[in-house]
């Protein structure tokens, strides 16, 4: 068990983080090279002002027409994404690991808050799962990969929650938790989870086109 733990928390973690960062770099560079090669006109229309106008509206809860039209979804999706991003970064036990390995540390969330955030992510995942299964317009465009991606996102939080509360099988859940986290890191650049990086750019481009050329709102 200890060997497996060492492996997943050592070499495999390296692999995951390298794949995560290198993957993101690769995807971004590839995107930019493709734009230069095939669609350089895009640069002509990019505007910082309208990029930010678009991004800020969309990252503000109820900041856009569609967020306002779907209040429950909006609350869930914002709570889900905020928790998803903040809790792993500011979790005390994660920061402790960084501290032990690299002697770096930062502010951490109170464990109780982090615990609630994990539950929010899990509940959010359930919400999205139910939405996929019940909402006709979502179900129609859902494929197996959508469930897999949802599972990839939920897994680190489910396992982390179980591990933290040490209900049963603690060592296994710790290992599974690390593994799940690593899978998610690797998946981000290479699956639709890449919306984490690309959405900024697609928003910026659409915001610019709407602001500069179409002179109307994209939010």
């Amino acid at each position, binding site marked *: 068990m200890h060997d497996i733990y060492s492996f997943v928390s050592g070499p495999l973690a390296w692999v995951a983080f390298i794949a995560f960062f290198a993957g993101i770099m690769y995807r971004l560079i*590839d*995107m*930019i090279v*493709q*734009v230069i*090669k*095939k*669609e350089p*006109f*895009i640069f*002509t*229309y990019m505007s910082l002002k309208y990029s930010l106008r*678009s991004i800020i509206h*969309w990252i503000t809860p109820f900041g*856009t*027409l*569609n967020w306002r*039209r*779907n209040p429950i*979804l909006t609350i869930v999706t914002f709570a889900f994404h905020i928790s998803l991003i903040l809790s792993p970064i500011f979790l005390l036990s994660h920061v402790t690991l960084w501290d032990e390995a690299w002697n770096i540390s930062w502010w951490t969330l109170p464990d109780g808050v982090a615990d609630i955030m994990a539950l929010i992510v899990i509940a959010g995942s359930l919400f999205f799962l139910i939405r996929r299964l019940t*909402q*006709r*317009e*979502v*179900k*129609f*465009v*859902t*494929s197996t990969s*959508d469930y897999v*991606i949802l599972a990839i996102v939920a897994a680190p939080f489910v396992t982390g929650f179980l591990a933290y509360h040490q209900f049963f099988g603690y060592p296994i859940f710790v290992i599974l938790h690390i593994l799940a986290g690593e899978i998610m890191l690797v998946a981000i650049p290479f699956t*639709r989870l*890449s*919306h984490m990086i*690309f*959405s900024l*750019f*697609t*928003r910026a*481009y*659409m*915001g610019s086109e*709407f602001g500069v*050329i*179409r*002179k*109307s*709102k*994209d*939010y």
Partner: protein
Amino acid sequence: MAEPAKKQEQEVKMTDEGLEVGASRLTEDKIEKVINQVLKAETGARLKTYVDTCVHCGLCSEACHFYMSNDKDPKWSPVGKVKQTIWEMINKKGKVTPEFIKRASEIASTECNLCRRCLQFCPFGIDIAYLIATVRRICHKLGVTPRYIQDTAHSHSVTMNQMWVKGDEWPDTLQWQEEEARGEFPGLRIPLEKEGADVMYSVIAPEPKFQAQLIYQAAAIMNVAGVDWTMPADMGWDNSDMAMFTGDNEIMGRVKRAHFETAARLRVKRIVMGECGHAFRSVYDTGNRWLGWSRPAIPIVHAIDFYYELLRDNKIPIKEKFKDPVTLHDPCNVIRGGGLMEKSRFVANALCETVVEMHPNREYNYCCAAGGGVINCGPPYKLKRVKGNRVKAEQLMDARARGAKVIISPCHNCHSGLKDIKNYYDIHMDIKFFGDIIYKIMEKPE
């Protein structure tokens, strides 16, 4: 709000020779080759990023009038249409059947107006209209495009106008309208080929073909307002562009080049165009780009914008305002695509005593379901088109319930689309262009 009364129209399944014959000539090899050629050579980071970023959340669905009007049937949602077309092509690496292409072409050409409302609903700003336009492009290269709009694209290719108007018919029509108008406005001119005029006035070919009174009215307004204007006698007078909507980008470019080079040849400062939406999209945003012009080479002024200037500067003397309450339709290509919503309202309020707003409005307005080339696909799809816009009928009924008697629609396609809708749903309202109202209420010589 009352349910619109629907006329019982027999749904006749009409076949479309453009799709049937086109698809019958395809082989799976050819399909695979063409799809991959278009995906590889003609698309780039945009398509890839859009496809990789879409999380299949379905949040675009309620933007679409087709989806809303078809009882939220998911196959009508924007992403649903993407799934049935370009996703399949990408996932199967082009290995799809002729039958699939036929259906994809029908979806892309007749079940999406490229109105871009869903772009405003997508949290990631995915350009769904671009994805659907890419499907049309693929279908064009496979020779599977609905017959009527394909015929229109052919007309563009031969005559540089939309309606097979021949070289002599165009100046002849202008001279005929000029002569007619002189009865009412002595000395009125439609100055042909007047180099160095301030403004080149351009129209779409249905005007000389079927609606010459619109040219008459425009000439009357130009003359009363004292505008230094001209119209070209040669090709390049038509600003319309169905090639843009069939995916025939090369013809789109050729038609737009003729338009801009004609304006440059006439040394005008700007091009003022009639009340047309799709043409505005083509000259202002899309066609120019294919040619390498990041902006229109000669500034394009839509009629709304032009009337706004004339009315703001008191260039058109008004006898009295239009009495019947009006409601204002916001055409996607000039409002969502050109930001003319407030100017449109300025013009409406300057001309009419009462303006009743529809909801949603401005850049969030529902599409007319005619634009994007859909009405140009002709009779086989008419019923689908009007049934697919029940939400617009409800908007109109609501405006009517609040007193509106006239719909102002500053776009030709919207005009025709709304007319079909009001007929189908029995909504008793008149439809007018701004130009109709200006002509009616402006001071004319005794």
